[in-house]
């Protein structure tokens, strides 16, 4: 396998690491030295040739290849077997309607949630349960970080250059979690999107706001009322270019899910309950309609662990959620 990236030679790993900082190749955290052997192993795990194009950012003259993605995946700390998920996340992020340029140059500092469904969660240890949004899980941390390093190093979203976030935020280091499909008989997100149950799929949602909804009432309608009331504080404007695909992701936590399941609530019923309430006309200064075309634009995902009665809203930037099948090295799903 012939790689095309420029090489840099150092005497020690510490010197290489310091050089990565000097060159501006890191997110501020240490990176793993990307040797040709490690990158080749990554590409082999994905069944990809170095020059295969995963996508582009036309506004920036950027083409993202498998090789550059593999280098950044190594640097992020991924194991080689994570690479098909990284590739799916990068491909999803580079779909036109994911609006890479806008979501990564914005003053608002949008993040990107990588939501994983299917058997690959178990194969790789992608956490969907307790503490799944946070640190402690190599697959979650490094897959999400790999996407962010690609956005930084390949797509040129470097603070001071084309990353113009006024504050930015910690989710831009990494944000990856799985759906807890086993917690119930709810239809998993990827099946709702048209994939087979045994497919593994990555969905990428831009995240302009991450809103916590804590509601201790046991009555399902009261829980859902808290969700749409929190959502309406933020609101969601219509964007003609993004069109009817713009969606919010509602991550239903374990305690809320148990109460909803107890009373027989399905994802479809939840979305049908929330949609008219989220999209009703604005009535006050701190009340804002969400422009969501249909109940299907409320994407319900189960995740998190037991304890606090909590769910989360992932409100998008100027993009729609995009999804990609995780492909095995042979090219099959």
């Amino acid at each position, binding site marked *: 396998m012939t*790689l095309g*990236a*420029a*090489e*840099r*030679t*150092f*005497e*020690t*790993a510490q*010197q*290489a690491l310091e*050089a*990565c900082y000097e*060159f501006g*190749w890191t997110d501020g955290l240490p990176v793993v*030295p*990307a*040797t*040709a052997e490690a*990158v080749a192993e990554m590409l082999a795990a994905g069944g990809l040739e170095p020059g295969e194009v995963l996508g582009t950012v*036309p*506004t*920036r*003259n*950027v*083409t993202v290849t498998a090789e*550059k993605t593999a*280098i*950044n995946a190594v*640097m992020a700390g991924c194991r080689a077997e994570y690479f098909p998920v990284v590739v799916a996340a990068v491909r999803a992020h580079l779909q036109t309607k994911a*609006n890479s*340029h*806008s*979501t*990564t*140059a*914005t*003053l*608002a500092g949008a993040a990107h949630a990588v939501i994983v469904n299917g058997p690959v969660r178990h194969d790789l240890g992608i956490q969907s349960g307790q503490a799944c949004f946070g640190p402690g899980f190599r697959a979650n941390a490094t897959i999400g970080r790999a996407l962010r*390093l690609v956005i930084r*190093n*390949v797509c*040129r979203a470097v603070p*001071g*250059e*084309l*990353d*113009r*976030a006024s504050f930015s935020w910690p989710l831009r280091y990494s944000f990856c979690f799985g759906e807890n499909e086993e917690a119930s008989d709810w239809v998993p997100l990827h099946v709702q999107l048209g994939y087979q149950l045994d497919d593994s799929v990555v969905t990428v949602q831009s995240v302009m706001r991450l809103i916590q909804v804590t509601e201790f009432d046991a009555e399902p309608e009261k829980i859902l009322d808290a969700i749409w009331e929190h959502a309406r504080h933020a609101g969601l404007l219509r*964007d*003609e*270019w*993004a069109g009817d695909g713009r969606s919010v992701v509602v991550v239903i936590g374990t305690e809320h899910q148990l109460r909803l399941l107890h009373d027989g609530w399905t994802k479809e019923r939840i979305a049908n309950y929330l949609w008219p309430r989220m999209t009703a006309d604005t009535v006050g200064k701190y009340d804002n309609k969400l422009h969501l075309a249909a109940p299907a634009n409320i994407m319900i995902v189960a995740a998190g662990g037991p304890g606090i009665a909590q769910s989360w809203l992932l409100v998008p930037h*100027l993009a729609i959620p995009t999804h990609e099948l995780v492909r095995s090295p042979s090219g099959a799903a």
Partner: protein
Amino acid sequence: MALVILDPTNGPIDAASGFVTAPRPADLKGLTFGIMANGLGDSETMFDALCAGLAESDGVADVVKVVKASVAVPPSPEEWDRFTASASVAVTGLGGCGSCSTRSMRDALDLEAAGIPAVCIVHSALVPAVRAMARLVGCPDYPIVTIDYPHNPTGVWTKEEARALAREIAPAVRQRLTQAS
């Protein structure tokens, strides 16, 4: 033993060179003035007033305007064709947020490459952003017109403020779009 590592980037942002701007007309008289707007805040009011003012002061004959469907996307192919078929000179913007400023700068640079003299209207807060975009295409010193504080970067202005801004920037726009530059 030496450690050899691979470059994770697409190279330096300023690697391109040789960008050529479009030839400028002597003046704006009788020309069709193009507005490639992104709809940010109240900037459309400013652009409309700018065009009306230049019609009165400089004899601009006609206007073609595109308001893109989102603040930081390219014009659609149909919008691009309609715009470039008639615009003699053009302004783009408002460069008032991170993604829209850089995209508006790209719009101006793309118009230059298509032979249409252009200028991007940018808030001073976003000058480093559009400079990065200019470096990316190999034209680091590409002229812009700036708006400054106390005006809000993201175009949250009153109508009168927007019209006053149009009057303020008109001389600089004229200069950038003609041989006076």
